[in-house]
């Protein structure tokens, strides 16, 4: 377990560095800076702004400052010379993503702090919903294998995978917001704001989970120990829920890592359609606004999230299935 985690940590460091390096230099190699395309500024003002954001530094120094936790500011260590009492930028490694290039008075951390809880809540709600729907339909499909129910559920799952979530979302908005006004148009804060976006975001993953559960359950139900359980005279319900499900859900567990990454991606679109002020809509805006630090902050944060979750999932997998040896992979 410990060597596994150590190895993971090492690859994590390499991954993170790659992401930072590539995105930093790509961003900086764009010809226009974030302050270029607006109205022409006075040369002095331009220089001041660039100095404030350290755009006048050589590339390597900017990168070192960005990664941190060194403070390379000429004003001295720990930013004694900073104006307006704003905290100095200490770099990503100390958990500071720097100031936003667009929202002048906000740091990237402020924006993430506001938006991340919203996206997390939406993500968790849709994940819960995806798990509930996917597992239940998957089990039903496996038990009634070959029947019309099974066939229609599998077709529905294929449709769920094939249809983009923004298409489903626009249908649902027309249906349940305008034709039958059950839900508010957009916004965030109350429970009814969460239902439609959560439904649309979770649907694809429900479809995948349903497929995986079905395959896993079919595999588990054909095992000898299930026959033994039946022969012992256990109720079919107990056999399925207690004995088969444990093995049958293993593929679903290993899918949770990629599913989280997918939910983060999906939130880009869903948050835009439903006007939810989450991290996804901030990211899309930051990319088109050329808000370098915000876009990079979100990318790095998501890399950390996805990587961390994948590791947790792998660990959980070994706990559920003792046959798997971490030292092998």
């Amino acid at each position: 377990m410990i060597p596994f985690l150590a190895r993971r940590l090492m690859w994590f460091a390499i991954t993170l560095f790659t992401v930072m390096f590539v995105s930093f230099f790509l961003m900086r190699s764009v010809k226009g800076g974030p302050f270029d395309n607006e109205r022409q500024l006075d040369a002095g003002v331009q220089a001041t702004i660039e100095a404030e954001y350290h755009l006048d530094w050589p590339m390597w120094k900017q990168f070192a400052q960005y990664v941190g936790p060194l403070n390379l500011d000429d004003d001295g260590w720990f930013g004694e010379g900073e104006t307006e009492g704003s905290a100095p930028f200490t770099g990503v490694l100390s958990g500071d993503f720097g100031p936003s290039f667009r929202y002048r008075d906000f740091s990237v951390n402020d924006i993430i702090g506001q938006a991340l809880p919203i996206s997390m809540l939406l993500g968790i709600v849709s994940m819960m919903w995806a798990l509930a729907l996917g597992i239940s339909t998957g089990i039903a499909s496996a038990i009634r294998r070959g029947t019309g129910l099974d066939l229609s559920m599998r077709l529905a799952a294929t449709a769920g995978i094939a249809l983009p979530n923004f298409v489903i979302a626009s249908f649902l908005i027309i249906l349940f917001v305008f034709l039958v006004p059950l839900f508010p148009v957009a916004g965030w804060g109350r429970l009814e704001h969460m239902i439609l976006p959560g439904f649309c975001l979770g649907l694809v993953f429900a479809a995948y989970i349903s497929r995986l559960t079905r395959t896993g359950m079919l595999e588990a139900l054909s095992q000898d120990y299930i026959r033994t359980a039946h022969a012992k005279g256990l109720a079919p319900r107990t056999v399925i829920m207690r004995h088969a499900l444990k093995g049958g859900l293993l593929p679903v567990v290993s899918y949770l890592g990629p599913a989280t990454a997918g939910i983060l991606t999906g939130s880009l679109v869903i948050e835009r359609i439903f006007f939810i002020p989450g991290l996804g809509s901030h990211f899309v805006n930051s990319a088109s606004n050329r808000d370098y630090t915000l876009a990079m902050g979100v990318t790095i944060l998501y890399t950390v999230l996805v990587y961390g979750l994948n590791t947790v999932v792998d660990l959980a997998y070994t706990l559920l299935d003792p046959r798997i040896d971490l030292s092998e992979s």
Partner: protein
Amino acid sequence: MDGKRRFDFGAGELERLAEEAREFKGESLWQDAWRRLRRNRFSWWAGVFLAIFMLGSFLAPVFPLRSPTEIRTERANLAPSFGGGDLNYLSEFKEDPTNDELDRAYWDLSFIDHGLLRMRMAIFKRWQPDTILGTDNLGRDILSRIVWGSRTSILVALAATLFSLLIGVTYGAFSGLMGGRIDNLMMRIVDILYSIPFIFVVIFLITFIGDRSTELEDKGIDREFVFYVVIGAVYWLTMARVVRGQVLSLKNSEFIEALRVMGASTPRILFAHVVPNILSIVIVYLTLTIPAIMLFEAFLSFLGLGIEAPKVSWGTLANDGTTAINPLRIYWWLVVFPAAAMGSTLLALNILGDGLRDALDPKMRGKD
């Protein structure tokens, strides 16, 4: 047959056995796969649908449709209606338009499209149907936009898939053939790339490209080309893994050894046995990659980061549809028809992909 005779091959007996053996026709992988695919009715019809659809998409200029970019504000937001006649929307065309005139009505078209458009004028003259699927807020014809948009979507999907195939197969095959430490390192790199949330990097890249597009165009690289390359560069990872696994297992497999012992030449082993074995798995992944990339293109275009006007793709159509949703009047045709076109194609691709996987996956052979 008694035990004694079994070993007593007379000349005639041997001849007879050889004759008998010749009568058994081995079934190649492809014949078998074809048979299985035909038996799977869903997949078969999905394939037929896609073939018709691809043909229709290629022949888009022949259909008597208005130009997808032609703006007629006086005909904005018209509901679907049937009928037709000499509506004269092609008023800017003379009887025999030059290529430049055609390009002005559409965009820079290829010479094939010029030819197809002339063919359409020869067949239909100036006749056009009414707006069968309605018009959008600028009076553009939705049917025409869907049909022309399908070309962009298919082209992006095919080009990007081909590109990902190229990288993935080369990388995977090289890694598998080298084996040992190089293989290990190459696969670690793939692992690293896997754990990067690529969507964000791609959005990055595309905005970055958008910023210097004029600069790149001077060098003869257009935005769409970069778009294909970027998407393809993201989707090669799974392909590389799959191909590498297959190469590795083939390299050490007994049947290859048996072929060598039997004296088969290296090219024969490679092209008659190794390549078909890899090809089947590659085709399966291709049919699953194409819809994924189509979806991705739609996703990017939806966010306004993909295909740019005047060209249309299904993603931009879906985006137009959702922005047109408002509580006062529901222009349902803007949402429903593009969604139906995209949905049915993606669904058919997925069903065909699943069917092909069942038909071609060697592990599934002999089972049902």
